[in-house]
Each structure stands twice: as structure tokens, then as C-alpha cells.
């Protein structure tokens, strides 16, 4: 018996109450999630957060202790991997080394008693799809890492599964290949409209590829949202810290939406007036949200600051500032190379900075 699974929304995969323990360690605790049909969702989190375990549970390679999985209206919670409908790509590619690329891609097709001609056509189509039309007679060992991962993708898609699972597919590749392949995978996924879940620990990858990002930490979901929501409006201190760079300022509420940071007082974001005076809080501000000199003057939260360090990173610089009156809490600012050149920025220089209230987040 399974509970009614008909849902009015457009979700293809629904997880509820997924819990997994390994001995005393709780790997996943009461995970609930819905993946919309045809969309790409990424599970993002540090190693050990449970994201890979969750993916393996969806694949039926691990069994959850509690909870249900409904895929395409079918309760698959207890089904073995063989009876589920998905294709999977692993970080290690897991291509069969002794079989040609053709045989690798055809591996799942041969078993479905399809005719040779049909298989040949389908394999050719897939190899073209992943941009390696001539790879058929080669062996995996003769291809580069990125090419092997494209073949693994073709093999996973060969049987036209309803769900594509990607387990850190880009982590083993070099930086350039990683960026190239992530664009290709995303384009392919959108073209085929296959519902996809990708596990990654790389925030850039998660933000750039996903329709929805699930940020996980210690077996729990911290936040589910679009990449913009995750970055601009983090739901927790963990998310703000894990995704992107962020300044954290310790502050004490002074009432009516004002906060004291060491010897300085700033306005907080709208809606922070309710916080009782004397409460210790943390203010989160992205390095690129800090305004400098001319731009800083137009709004209320301004302060003087001294440059203590300039870190050159190519297209931009990370500049560390000491706010006059709050020298104990350094502030990192992200500036383009042009603006640092213009200001002739060097250690010891004095600046005016603005901390826009609407960019400041108050998180526990």
C-alpha cells in the first residue's frame, strides 16, 4: 500500500521523510523535496553533508531507513535499482575499460533485445549528441577525461530514462574542461527536457547550471531555491557562508532597526526594527555590495576605512579594510581592477565606504 501520490503540481520526483543512519551517525534526517519535471536540481553542500547518500537512495543503491520516494507517480521507495527508471553518471566515469565506446553506450540497449541496426542508429545519434561522433571504435583509455565523461553521459541517456542522476560529474576534470562540459550538460539537459539531479560541492557549478539549488548541511536541507534566491537571500548563516564570500560583522541591536558594530552604529535592513535592544546579532554583507567613495555618500550607513591589504586576483581585487571605529572587524571588499587603478589603491589609503542597509542580512 502506498499513500495517494497524485499531485496537482508539476513535480516528477517527490521525497518525503527520508532518513538514513549509519550506526549512530545520522546521514540524512527527514528530507522532503520535490523536483519539477524537466528541470535540473543540484544538491550542494560540503563533503559529508549527505548529498551523495541522498542521490544513491534515489537511485536505489542505498536504502533509506524511513521515508518514501515517488517517481513519475509511482512509489519506488522499496524497489531495487533494477526496477527504477534512471540513468546515472559518476565522478569516476565508470566506463567499462575493456569495451569499445560503441559497446559502452550500447550496454543498456543490447539487454532490451533491440535489433542491431536500431542499436547502431541510437548509439550514433547519442555520440553525435555529446559531440564525439567518431569515438565508437575507440577504448575509454584512449579518450581524455572530459571525453570519457561525455560518453558516460551518452550511456546514461541511451535508454531514454525519465531521470538523470549526476554524481559530481565534473569533479575529476581540469578547470577548463569543467567549465566547458558544464555548459554542454546544461544545454543537453534543456534540449532533451530530462529531469536531472546533480550532486556537487562546487557552488559555481551549482549556481550556473541549476534551475533549483538544494543547499545541504549535516544531513539536513538548509535552503531550496533558485540560484538567485540562494545567493541574494540566504536562509541561514550556513548558506550565506557556504555560497559565495561574505563579511560577518558582530553587532548589538540598539532598537528601532539600528545596530552597533564596535563603536559604529548602522541601520539594519527593513523589518529588523522588532529586534529587542541588547540582542547580539550577526550582520552579513557580500564583498561586492560594499560601496566606495563617491557611491558611498548617497546613503546613510557610511564610515571611514583604511586599506590594510590588497589581494590581486586578475579581473578584480579583494581589498581588506579596517573601519575607523571598528578596526577589530576587518571588512573585505570586492573591487574591479579598473576601480582600484582609478583610485590608485594601496595599503594605508583612506576611503569612504557605504554599507547599504538593504544588502545587509541578519542571520542567527
Amino acid at each position, binding site marked *: 500500500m502506498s499513500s495517494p501520490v497524485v499531485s496537482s503540481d508539476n513535480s516528477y520526483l517527490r521525497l518525503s521523510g527520508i532518513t538514513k543512519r549509519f550506526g549512530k551517525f545520522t546521514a540524512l534526517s527527514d528530507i522532503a523535496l520535490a523536483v519539477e519535471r524537466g528541470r535540473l536540481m543540484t544538491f550542494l553542500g560540503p563533503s559529508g553533508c549527505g548529498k551523495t547518500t541522498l542521490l544513491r537512495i534515489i537511485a536505489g543503491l542505498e536504502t533509506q531507513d524511513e521515508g518514501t520516494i515517488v517517481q513519475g507517480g509511482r512509489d519506488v521507495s522499496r524497489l531495487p*535499482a533494477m526496477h527504477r527508471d534512471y540513468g546515472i553518471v559518476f565522478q569516476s566515469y565508470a566506463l567499462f575499460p575493456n569495451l569499445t565506446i560503441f559497446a559502452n553506450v550500447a550496454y543498456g540497449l543490447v539487454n532490451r533485445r533491440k535489433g542491431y541496426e536500431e542499436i547502431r542508429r541510437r548509439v550514433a545519434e547519442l555520440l553525435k549528441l555529446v559531440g564525439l561522433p567518431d569515438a565508437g571504435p575507440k577504448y575509454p583509455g584512449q*579518450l581524455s577525461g572530459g571525453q570519457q565523461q561525455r560518453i558516460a553521459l551518452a550511456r546514461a541517456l541511451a535508454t531514454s530514462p525519465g531521470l538523470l542522476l549526476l554524481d559530481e560529474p565534473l569533479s575529476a576534470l581540469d578547470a577548463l574542461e569543467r567549465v566547458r562540459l558544464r555548459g554542454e550538460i546544461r544545454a543537453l539537459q534543456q534540449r532533451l527536457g530530462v529531469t536531472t539531479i546533480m550532486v556537487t560541492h562546487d557552488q559555481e557549478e551549482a549556481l550556473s547550471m541549476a534551475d533549483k539549488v538544494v543547499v545541504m548541511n549535516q544531513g539536513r536541507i538548509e535552503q531550496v531555491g533558485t540560484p538567485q534566491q540562494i545567493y541574494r537571500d540566504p536562509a541561514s548563516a550556513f548558506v550565506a557562508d557556504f555560497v559565495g564570500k561574505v563579511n560577518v560583522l558582530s553587532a548589538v541591536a540598539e532598537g528601532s532597526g539600528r545596530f552597533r558594530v564596535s563603536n559604529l552604529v548602522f541601520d539594519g535592513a527593513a523589518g529588523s526594527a522588532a529586534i529587542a535592544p541588547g540582542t547580539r546579532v550577526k550582520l552579513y554583507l557580500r564583498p561586492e555590495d560594499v560601496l566606495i567613495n563617491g557611491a558611498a555618500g548617497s546613503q546613510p550607513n557610511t564610515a571611514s576605512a583604511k586599506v590594510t591589504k590588497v589581494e590581486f586576483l586578475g579581473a578584480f581585487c579583494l581589498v581588506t579594510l579596517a573601519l575607523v571605529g571598528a578596526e577589530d572587524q576587518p571588512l573585505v571588499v570586492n573591487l574591479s581592477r579598473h576601480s582600484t587603478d582609478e583610485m590608485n589603491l594601496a595599503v594605508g589609503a583612506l576611503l569612504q565606504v557605504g554599507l547599504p542597509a538593504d544588502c545587509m542580512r541578519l542571520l542567527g
Partner: protein
Amino acid sequence: MSTVAAPAPSFPRGRVKPVAHWHDRLAQGLLLLSCALLAIFLLAPLAMILVKSTEDKSGAFVGLQLFREYLQNPALRDSAFNTFWVALTVTAITVPLAFTFAYALTRSCMPAKGAFRLVALTPILSPSMLAAISFIQWFGNQGALKSWLFGNTVYGPIGIIISAVYAIFPHALMIVLTSLLLADGRLYEAAESLGTPRLRKFFTITLPAARYGIISAAMVTFSYTVSDFGIPKVIGGNFSVLAIDIFKQVIGQQNFNRGAVVSLVLLLPVVIAFLVDWWMQGRQQSQFSARAVPYVPKPSRGFDTTMLAFCIVVCTFLLAVLGMAVYTSFIKLWPYNLSFSLRHYVFGLVDGGVIDSYFNSLKMAFITAALGTTLIFGTAYLLEKTRGAPLARAFIRLLATIPMAVPGMVLGLGYIFFFNHPDNPLHVLYGGMLILAASTIVHYYTSSHLTAVTALKALDNEFEAVSASLKVPFYKTFFRVTVPVCLPAILDIARYLFINAMVTISAVVFLYSPDTKLASIAIINLDEAGEIGPAAAMSTLIVATSATICLIYAAATRWLIGRTQAWRKPATPA
């Protein structure tokens, strides 16, 4: 009651029980079969020894009575002492020899390393009795170099010790060699840049890295010497050791219970050696570094020459032993008529019908290799690559390591107790070829198992997951991917089992019947009858057969890698 809304069905949030696919059930069933086989052919015989050691001849329970009697019997006590000090002496000689040899192979720039290594491994091809026969020819009553012993007799501890050193040398060498090969070249470069002298590098880098290998080699050497039966039987004279005691008690006096007691006394030091080794292996894990850079030695005239001289001496010794046995088999009558003759082969073996035992050995070796490889590799595969049945897995992992700690004589005696029991339905196996093969497979299980597990661990862990996602049954992937990729390891296991089946003596000496007499047993019998020429001829036949198998193995491996395993070639530059 239709007016009252039924409460929503609530399900207890119990543990989710996955539905097992029949493939999983099949894999688990096969795993249980492996458990059953190991229980029947390893655990039950060993348990029977414990039972028999606490019973008197009529089968009544007498507790530790037999052990007390044993301790009060000075003759038996003596042989325990003899066994112990002989094994210690062999270890003290073999390990430094093997270490220096391995050091020369890995740390010097001497020429012909491959040839030296090959010669050093030749003793593996021969039954342990070959060394004993050869040393009788060299140093025995009519020996060519009898004077070298200054009036001491070779029949006794001297003969046992030098023969055992010969027989165990390649095993110790392989272990030490492996540990020396693990050396991290970066450490030596760092030491060099700090101006460290060679001797200090040896004591601060080489020795610490190799110490586990040295201890392991010592334990293996000690266990081998304690357990070996063939050498003391041929060259031991009146010098009593435990392995001979068991044989005398069981075959001579038909006192099975006392045989069980002696075999437990023999088992004890071997188990201790095994546990020491096992404990050390566990500590070694942390030493490995994936980023280690192989060490490349630099030429150094004096050192290289010294090492070369040492290896020449050792290899001359090894070849002299093998050569004397082969020579003995081809001359008319030592030392009176040294003309070439095939009479030991023709009259000694063929005409006497003794040659049948050679064919029995061949047959047994083929069965052992075929059956053993299938069972051992199959079990290792199920263990490493399938899911479920955690208890069966733990049981097999434990049982797979036990055979290393069980001397062949103990195993063989256990087989008598278990399979010769009239109530045992497997009694039909007794006296047949299968029981000889089974005991040999079990006796050499551990090494083969480790070879299989190592090869399987090198495969991507996700092959099975990918197959399941593509709805391909695991057994198809096993035959299409796992077996082809692991073929070199599979052939290695087959060769190892075959060669050991050709030379083994200690377990099978209790289990053969007139129809299934083996070549190694024939050597013992010929030697007992004073037919040392035919005994040498039979030994030579075994060596030739083992060498042939090694050549076939080398050719097959090369052919495989060249032909069907084109994928092993490194990636062509894109």
C-alpha cells in the same frame, strides 16, 4: 457509518524494507554457498581436531588428559623444542639473506637484475624434498663436499636447516622485495639534499619503511619451517620434529587422538606468528602514500660490486641445489658411475608404474587450478561487488584469512577426522581425487583470495551500479567486464594453485589412496626405499612441469595483453 469521515490511513513509520531483486537473492545465495563450502572444508575439519584431542581411543571425553600425557613424554617434548630452535635458526638465516638480496635488486645499479630475480624464484617450482635430496648428494655419506661439514652429519638439523633456507628463500624474498619497492623516492632526495650518508639513510628511511615486510617474511619463514614435513622426512635422520611426530602417531601408530594433540601443539606457534603478522599488517596501512615517487638508485661502484658479488654467491648456491637434483636424475649411480643415463626415468619411474603418481599429480593440479580459481575468484567477487547478507560476508572474510595460519599436516589430519567419519554423507569423497584438490585449494586459499580481492578492488566501484541502472543483470557484467579485466589476476591464481598442487605434500600425505597417490608422495616413498635416483627424477619432472606452466602463463599473459586487452595501452596523445 458513512457520515463519519474515515481517518486518513496512517502507516507506522517503521524501517523501510527494500524489495530484493532476484539477482540480489541469487548473489546472496551463492555467497551462502561459499560460506557452506568454507565451513565444510575448513572449519569443520579444524573443529574435529579440537574434539579428537580431548577424546581417548574409544571416543570417550577425557578433557586435557592427552595434553598432560604429552607434556610428560620427554621424546615428544624434545621434538617440540627441536622444531622451535630449528625454525628460529632458519628464520635468522633466511631473512637477512632475503633482505640483502632484495636490497641489491632495488637499491643498487648492478647488472642482470632480472636474471638474478628469476634464479632466486626457482625454488618455488620444486617440492621441498628436492632440496633435501640435493643436499644428501652434496653433503651426505657419499657427498661430493662431505668434508665441508668437518665431520658433522647432514642427516639432522644441519640438513633440515639448509634445505629449509633453500625452499623458503623465494617466499621471504618476494615479501621483502614488495616492501622495499614501496619506498618513496622523495624521502631519499630530501635526505640527499641534507647531506645524509648512505648508512644513516638506510637506518632512518629504508629500514623503517621495510620493517613490516621483514617481520612478515620472518613469520612466514618460521611458520613454513615449523609446518614442513617433506624436508625432515628425507634428510632429518633420527632428529625428531613435530611434523614427523604427527605422521608417526597417525600413520605409524594409528594413534589419531595423540596425533590431534601434537597437531595442536604445532598449530600454536604458527597461529601466534600469524597473529603477529596480521597485527603488523594492520599497523602498516597508515604508511602508504598515494603520491609516493618510486626510488631510482644511482650508480656507486663499490656498493654495486659488493651487491653483485653477494647475488652471484646466493644464485650459485640456489642453482647448485637444483642442478645437483637434476644431475642426479640423469646419471647412472652416484658416486660410482657418473655417465649419462635415463634409467632413473625409464626403470625407476615408468617401468615401476611409479609414473602413474606423476599423472595423478597433473590431474590433481588441473582440478585444483580450475575449481580453485573459479571458487576463490567467484567468492571474492561476490564479497567485493554485491550487496546484502552482511553476516555471510564477515564470515567469509574471516575464514579466508585462516588457512594461512593452518599447517598442512593439521588440515590433512582434520580432513581424516571429518571426512572419514562413517556418518558423514561426504564420506564418499574420501580416498578420491576431489578431496586432495579440496584440501589443496583450502591450504592455499588465503594468498589466492588476496590476489583476487586486490584485482577486484582496482576496478571502479560503480560498475555494478551502472549495470543496475541500465537494467543489465550483474552476472552479465561479471562475464563481460569483470572477468576480462581481471584475467591477469585470474591466470595468476590458477598458476599459483597449479604449482602448489604439484609440490604440496603435508596435507595430502594423510589423504591419498593407492589410486590417487601423488608425485610428491612417490618421492617420499622412493627416498625411503633408498631409490634416490628415481626420487630425484620425479622431483625433476615436477620442476619441469611447474616451469612449463610458468612459461605458458607468461606467454598467455603477454598474448592477452597484446590482443584482447588493447585497451590497456596508454592513451594515444590526442
